[in-house]
């Protein structure tokens, strides 16, 4: 590997490490706040002190988890600058705005009212305290909204134009960025994922109390809230998951092909239920795609294009092109992107030299309001990012990783629906104490929530590779010019710190759970 490749891989590893640790804690924060707010609402409405005790216990666990989520979150924001500085400049105009809005609109709301949520029990009125708890929940969701809008833009860049004067992308339509279908779906899918993970956590901990025959009333009440919340959220998660796959099919066909391990495109393509992809399979060769597979016929075409007979392009079609389906090859895109890059360089050189004839001739090509400009964009400039790729095969992400992550996520997602439905049934029938196996399963299902959640992010982020912004900027162009050894060192530092803090958090959380709600409320 050359120096740049080593730097890119370590920078990606560092960002992935931070993001994955961050995403251990954030789903719990996102969902628990709402469940705690519901519990406190019941307390304020009924005046029943038991609900206050329940609220305070889960609030304490929420607090332990919240701090470490904040710690990992700050690093993520600044890593855009420290490790992806070229990216920060190239698209800061669009990407920075949601981050700033997140700070002003969401972080202050969360950080201000969380102090009242924790310390205000004896200092403010019941209603003000309840309002604060709800505002923390809303603040957490708003925070998720803005960062996911930013992430969605990386998957589907919209509401932006390229400015040749500054050689960067600039926002022209804020609402298009905020309400892009990818952003809306991503927000709903991700936040419902947080709700599911939180519901699994509360269900699992409550199950532990029931098994231990401690605080049974508390545990059953908590479980009732969590399983109801979990069932609704997991159904919603599946629906938004369908929406996500649909948008991936429309906007990121290579990601969809990797998710399904589909090398050769098909009309009426089936959806793999279970499969093992051939580890020896390479792009463009004749080996079988799978060692073994069970598929639902035509389902991939139906889900991806809402048409059971639609053509789903495979990896080979996207790399080498498929004339009959109107797909141009990656090589062609690289060449067209190179033309776009050379045109830009000529324009900037002309600007530097004050060559008004060349400026006048070329500036029209960058103006999409003109017919020439629109044509240049459609045929050349939309492939600008490809000019940085070395070979056509570079557009293929890590297929096995994306494929298995996707299928694990989907399988677990459906399992959660069944699990919550059955647990809720037991709780409503008041027989949950007698279902020991299900209670044990509830404890062990909690970690599965994290696995599904992390797998989802792997699909989203690894599936987008080699792009940091789909089709516009590859990761190799986005990375900061620091030495690979510096990034290796900070990677190791972060790994040690995050792992140590995770150990501390798990230990503290375990102790707080063992102490139970009486002590937890104090």
């Amino acid at each position, binding site marked *: 590997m050359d120096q740049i490749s080593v730097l890119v891989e370590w920078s990606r590893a560092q960002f992935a490490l931070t993001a994955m640790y961050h995403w251990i804690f954030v789903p719990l924060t996102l969902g628990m706040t709402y469940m705690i707010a519901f519990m406190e609402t019941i307390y304020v409405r009924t005046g029943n002190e038991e609900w206050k005790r329940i609220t305070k216990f889960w609030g304490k666990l929420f607090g332990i988890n919240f*701090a470490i989520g904040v710690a990992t979150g700050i690093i993520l924001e600044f890593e*855009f600058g*420290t490790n992806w500085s070229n990216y920060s400049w190239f698209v*800061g105009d669009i990407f920075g705005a949601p981050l*700033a809005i997140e*700070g002003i609109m969401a972080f202050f709301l969360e950080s201000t009212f969380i102090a009242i949520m924790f310390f205000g029990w004896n200092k403010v009125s019941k209603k003000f305290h309840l309002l604060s708890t709800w505002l923390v929940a809303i603040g957490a969701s708003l925070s998720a909204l803005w960062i996911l809008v930013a992430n969605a833009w990386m998957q589907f860049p919209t509401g932006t134009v390229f400015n040749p004067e500054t050689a960067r992308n600039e926002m022209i339509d804020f609402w298009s960025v905020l309400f892009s279908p990818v952003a809306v779906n991503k927000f709903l899918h991700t936040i419902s994922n947080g709700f599911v993970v939180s519901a699994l956590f509360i269900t699992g901990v409550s199950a532990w109390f029931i098994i231990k025959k401690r605080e049974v009333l508390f545990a059953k009440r908590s479980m009732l809230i969590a399983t109801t919340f979990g069932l609704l959220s997991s159904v919603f998660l599946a629906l938004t998951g369908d929406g996500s796959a649909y948008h991936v099919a429309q906007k990121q066909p290579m990601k969809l092909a990797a998710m399904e391990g589909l090398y050769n495109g098909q009309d009426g393509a089936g959806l793999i239920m279970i499969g093992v992809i051939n580890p020896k399979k390479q792009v463009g060769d004749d080996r079988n795609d799978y060692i073994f597979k069970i598929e639902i016929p035509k389902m991939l075409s139906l889900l991806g294009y809402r048409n059971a007979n639609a053509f789903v392009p495979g990896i080979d079609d996207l790399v080498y092109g498929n004339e009959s389906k109107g797909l141009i090859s990656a090589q062609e895109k690289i060449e067209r992107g190179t033309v776009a890059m050379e045109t830009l360089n000529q324009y900037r050189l002309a600007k530097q030299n004050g060559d008004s004839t060349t400026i006048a001739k070329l500036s029209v090509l960058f103006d999409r309001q003109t017919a020439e400009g629109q044509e240049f964009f459609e045929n050349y400039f939309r492939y600008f990012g490809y000019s940085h790729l070395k070979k056509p095969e570079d557009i293929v992400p890590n297929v096995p990783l994306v494929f298995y992550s996707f299928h694990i996520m989907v399988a677990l997602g459906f399992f959660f629906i069944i699990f919550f439905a059955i647990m809720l049934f037991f709780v409503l029938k008041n027989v949950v104490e007698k279902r020991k196996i299900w209670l044990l399963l509830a404890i062990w299902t909690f970690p599965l929530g994290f696995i599904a959640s992390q797998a989802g992010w792997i699909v989203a982020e690894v599936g987008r590779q080699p792009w940091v912004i789909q089709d516009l900027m590859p990761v190799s162009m986005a990375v900061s010019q620091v030495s690979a050894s510096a990034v290796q060192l*900070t990677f190791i530092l972060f790994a040690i710190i995050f792992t140590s803090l995770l150990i501390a958090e798990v230990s503290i959380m375990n102790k707080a759970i063992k102490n139970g709600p009486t002590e937890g409320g104090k």
Partner: protein
Amino acid sequence: MFETLSHLALQEYWWFIVSILGSFLVFLLFVQGGQSLLYSIGKEEPQISMMVNSLGRKWELTFTTLVTFGGAFFASFPLFYSTSFGGAYWLWMLILLTFILQAVSYEFRTKQGNVFGKKTFEWFLFLNGFIGTVSLGVAVATMFTGANFVHNSMNFTSWGNNWHGLEAFANPINLALGLAVFFLSRILAILYFNNTINDNLIRSRNQKQLVVNSILFLLFFLSFIISIWLIDGYAYDEVSGNIFTKPNKYFYNNIEHPLTGILFLCGVLFVLLGLFRSVTCYKTCGGKAIYPVGIGTFLTVLSLFCNLGYNNTVFYPSLISIQSGLTITKASSSHFTLTAMSYVSLLVPFVLAYIIIAWRSLNKKMIDADELNDDTHKY
């Protein structure tokens, strides 16, 4: 409303918003200052816990302000964000690492099951209080003294050495501001403790610390101010955008751009008045001095940012490629983004209003040893 403003007016407006956030951040660094005083004022229990619990209700506000300050810079002046963070890699990593440690320390410190022990987290708080404040001061000082970056034709950044920002500590002017910020944060913390903690032992120790830290702060702050007034500053030509050095630029900015000078004078007067009153009538004024010193800190830092951003000043000079230096016109986002962001900035007064309401409701009663024994959440 904002659409009618020129691009330059929006750039100036956003520089002011970023400056306000930066100034608010420096005031809120009293949390870090307080952390650095845990063993010199707290020394034993329950005093240390009273201090931690007093600061613990505000740490997230400082943290959030830092994040928003970064986010606002990213959105409004992305070229600075990419240049400074991507270039001065180690300097920013040092700051970030200490803030990670801080974020968990309040919550984990006294919890049962804390595998690393209480002292570890108290040391984490100290490290953040010391290294975090000094490094932030050094990072801001480089906006006056310059940094070792160069841009290519795409405005992508390269750094001139392998120290990636750590070399800034070798510049005495940078270090002076770093230490001034550190001692100022301790002064603010002492005054904050006087305002929020009802404990005679802490109050008496605060008095001694206030004098020592005030002297050291004034020493380093004056060294920094005099130095930057005397050095050649970086200016740019409004029409061509060409950057050049100008003797005593940062001094003359106070005169040529009166807002900067007035803010500076008012800020320094408030700080000095607050310090003077808190030292000379400690028993009766000590609890209230946080207000004039806090306001003074805010205004002084605001004036320093105004000094950098306005009057055709380069706010992030390059030491190795003078024309790579950053100005608000060169580093900013597009007109559209600044306009959209300006509408969002209208939320700032509402944010301030609810922060004040929440702050007042939590600070109605001072913290004392008894409060640590009741059934509220505590650190």
